[in-house]
């Protein structure tokens, strides 16, 4: 078992390495190679790693602490809330940027998740209702975002596309590195306290009987997830389904249930999947770029549907 796991870790790192090399060198104009890599491709790669890892970690944690295999920042509306928060604070020029990242997005994410928890505690308790409530919140936040952008932003509706479909090319090296730092710190937190996440695997009723505080763990997890999702969205817009697909594949693929391994695997594979999707989105329609969020959604939507149908048929997920 140990040897097998080690092999799977190695495969994960190898895929991430190949994805990174592709991101740096695929269709590179070698005449200006060093400038292109330093100025454009390296920050984009680092941001891709940070956002991919951050979103899939957020998906994993949300699925666990909300006991819902369909949960992720996109389907629960948290990403839309973050986009709204970031867009509003950015155009009001009230939000201070910290290392080029917009903390307004964190408040947007937190606001949506707390509204969702209120709705869930009022009866939308089963996984499907929770997703339905999340989709509604997401629609409301996206519509408010579109209205806000049309009225308040001089570039109007065009920049809505950035928020709704995501783009990894908009930020420089400093925000990308800051983002990576935050994801590593939050990832380490969940790794160290992975036992507490394990206690959630047996349903809410049982969490306390494992000696884990339900409320405390859930609140801390949600605040940390909102921090990560908020920053990811403020740097790269909304990139959907990474948080759904990666934890699902990792749970199935490695066949280990411990968060001690689920956390690092989700980080590695989330980073690899987003970097690969981004290289694909960048080079497929050259000279034009495809929106990376559209590519991840095309990969993620079938996985979501498969999970949803399996749940509806009463099978295990």
């Amino acid at each position, binding site marked *: 078992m140990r040897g097998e796991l080690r092999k799977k870790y190695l495969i994960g790192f190898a895929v991430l390495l190949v994805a990174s090399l592709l991101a740096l060198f695929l269709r590179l104009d070698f005449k200006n190679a060093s400038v292109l890599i330093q100025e454009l491709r390296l920050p984009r790669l680092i941001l891709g790693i940070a956002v991919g890892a951050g979103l899939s970690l957020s998906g994993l944690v949300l699925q666990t602490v909300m006991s*819902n295999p369909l949960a992720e920042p996109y389907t629960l509306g948290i990403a839309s809330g973050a986009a709204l928060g970031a867009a509003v604070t950015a155009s009001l020029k009230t939000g201070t940027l910290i290392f080029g990242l917009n903390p307004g997005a964190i408040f947007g994410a937190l606001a949506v998740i707390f509204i969702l928890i209120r709705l869930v505690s009022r009866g939308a308790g089963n996984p499907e209702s929770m997703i339905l409530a999340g989709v509604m919140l997401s629609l409301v936040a996206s519509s408010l975002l579109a209205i806000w952008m049309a009225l308040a932003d001089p570039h109007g509706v065009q920049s809505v596309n950035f928020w709704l479909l995501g783009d990894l090319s908009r930020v420089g090296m400093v925000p990308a590195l800051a983002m990576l730092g935050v994801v590593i710190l939050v990832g380490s937190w969940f790794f160290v306290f992975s036992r*507490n996440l394990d206690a959630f695997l047996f349903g809410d009723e049982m969490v*306390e*009987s494992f*000696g884990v505080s339900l409320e405390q763990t859930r609140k801390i997890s949600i605040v940390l997830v909102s921090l990560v999702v908020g920053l990811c969205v403020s740097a790269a817009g909304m990139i959907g389904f990474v948080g759904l697909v990666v934890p699902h594949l990792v749970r199935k693929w490695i066949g280990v*249930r411990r968060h*001690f391994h689920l956390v690092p695997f989700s980080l590695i594979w989330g980073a690899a999947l987003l970097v690969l999707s981004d290289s694909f989105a960048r080079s497929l329609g050259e000279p034009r770029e495809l929106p990376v969020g559209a590519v991840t959604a095309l990969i993620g939507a079938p996985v979501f549907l498969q999970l949803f149908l399996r749940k509806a048929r009463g099978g*295990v*997920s």
Partner: protein
Amino acid sequence: MIRASRLEVKSTEGRTLLHPFDLEVEAKTVLGVFGPNGSGKSSMLRAIAGEPGVVSRLGEVLIEGVPVRLLSNARDRSRRILYLGSDFRSPFELTVRDLFELGLEAASGRLWPGISTSERERMSSVVEALELISYLPRFFQTLSDGEKQYVMFARALIQAPKVLILDETFSKLDLDRLIAVTRIIRSWCECGMTFVISSHDLNFLSEISDQLVFLKQGRALAGGPVDSVLNETNLRDLFSKVAPHVITSPESGKRKILY
């Protein structure tokens, strides 16, 4: 072991679910709790365990002299007292072995995964006593409700708290399993564990309990040793439509009820 004084539970609307209640349970005792639906059994058991589901709890519960409310650390509390209900669901794919091992790991609070030799021995002895070996590789979600209750009870025993509170945990068990549960509870009780068990099966409670409490509309109707509590008068007070007969089993010498 357990001492509750003026314990009272109210619902969110302010309705009293359990009227002020005093209780004392010695160590190495099985306390059975019996009463009609809505008589306050679950409220009482949850309040004793300090479960977060209880809306408003007044009075004090001491476990080994330590007030439960002071056990704010969930890990300390779960080592002393563990509450188990009757309905178990998990949205994730987990085998019974995962359940046992992850349970031990989560409860231990250790950073690195893995379980100690003594924990592994305890797990083997419970798995053997409850004949659960063939269940270890099975997925928990695919088990029947009764099997889930049986497996969850095993998991709680493996965790070895000082007090185990079982709130209708055996409501869907078959006869063979009920007998296995009775045996293991009696033997673990002699080794130092204390149990509080609620059930609608009076014959099971009579077989397993040292002490019995009858609850009606949130109040204790009777309490004490099984022989003094389990009688036709008390049963008629509890249920108006039943004409019960209490007999003494010639094999076990325990009281049985016919109706």
